[in-house]
């Protein structure tokens, strides 16, 4: 009995990662939970992102280059009791011993600067991405895309960092996988 209770408390005090596969879509979702904070990452097929971008006036070739950069639909929530701060530029992506960073809003602003893309399209992409830096009071949340800069189908680990009530929290979401080009 006491062992089971201690397991329960360990669960409350520690992070967990769950994985689901969408019954209809076949897409995978990973969710990290820690003290009422959750980060939910849902695979996005390159075609979903291509359609989104072309619908906002991105030229097809540019949309294709962006869409194959490993997008996830992301939901970050603070349902805990402490304020939360995150900075995506401090997060790391590791894959087969290589380390890289997320492609955040500022990365895309810079990358798209020299291309002939309507301003409205750039604005749409910017706002549809998860904010690079954010402060959540309890009850706050954002949805937005996060981008990992890897080819379709690639497996990787995500090293995340945040501050909860001013205290640092670091963890790893292991075994994430960019959506493949096509689902079987």
């Amino acid at each position, binding site marked *: 009995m006491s062992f089971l209770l201690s397991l*329960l408390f360990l669960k409350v005090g520690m992070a967990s990662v769950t994985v689901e596969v969408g019954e209809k879509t076949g897409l995978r979702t990973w969710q990290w939970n820690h003290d009422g904070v959750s980060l939910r990452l849902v695979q996005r097929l390159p075609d979903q992102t291509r359609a989104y971008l072309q619908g906002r006036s991105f030229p097809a070739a540019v949309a294709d280059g962006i869409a194959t950069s490993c997008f996830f639909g992301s939901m970050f929530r603070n349902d805990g009791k402490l304020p939360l701060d995150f900075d995506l530029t401090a997060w790391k992506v590791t894959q087969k011993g290589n380390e890289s960073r997320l492609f955040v809003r500022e990365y895309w602003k810079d990358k798209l600067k020299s291309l002939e893309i309507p301003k409205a399209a750039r604005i749409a992409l910017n706002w549809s991405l998860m904010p690079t830096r954010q402060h959540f009071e309890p*009850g706050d949340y954002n949805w937005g895309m996060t981008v990992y800069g890897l080819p379709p189908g690639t497996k990787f680990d995500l090293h995340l960092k945040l501050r909860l009530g001013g205290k640092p929290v670091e963890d790893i979401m292991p075994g994430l996988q960019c959506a493949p080009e096509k689902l079987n």
Partner: protein
Amino acid sequence: MYKAIIAILFALLLTGTARATGKGLTALPDKPIAPAFELKDAEGNLHRLADYKGQVIIVNFWATWCPPCRAEMPSMQRAWEQLREEGIMMLAIDVGEDEDAIFEFTASYPVEFPLLLDTESSVSEAWKVKGLPTTFIVDQWGRKVYRAVGGREWDAPDLMKKVRALKEVP
């Protein structure tokens, strides 16, 4: 007892699924002055923040493609139906889109409060909005007093009470 503990563990695993509403309003202790703006609505009418001086205003930043923004619109409309009679204003500022996107949106989500167009997203940036939706409550002196990041059930009694209470501040 064993079954109960397993059930609790399972419930913990499921916490935080993709819900499109958040909770509460965060008080902004320094009450910064809300940046002035002049924006057109989808019908071409000009709205200045200064036009609503002396009124409590709910200022919502949103976009038609944003799922939590769409999810909170019906509750904003229900809140508006009550609050407009009480002299409280509601403005929803669309970020980065044009009239066509708004017309298409209002066919599925008929709302009666003004939908303003911040096509260059300059107002959103001046208001320090980072993600959509974000909503501010502005008091009758033009100060941002509350903020909500993410969608809310705007007609929930606790939220309405907080907004109405601002009218009572002398």
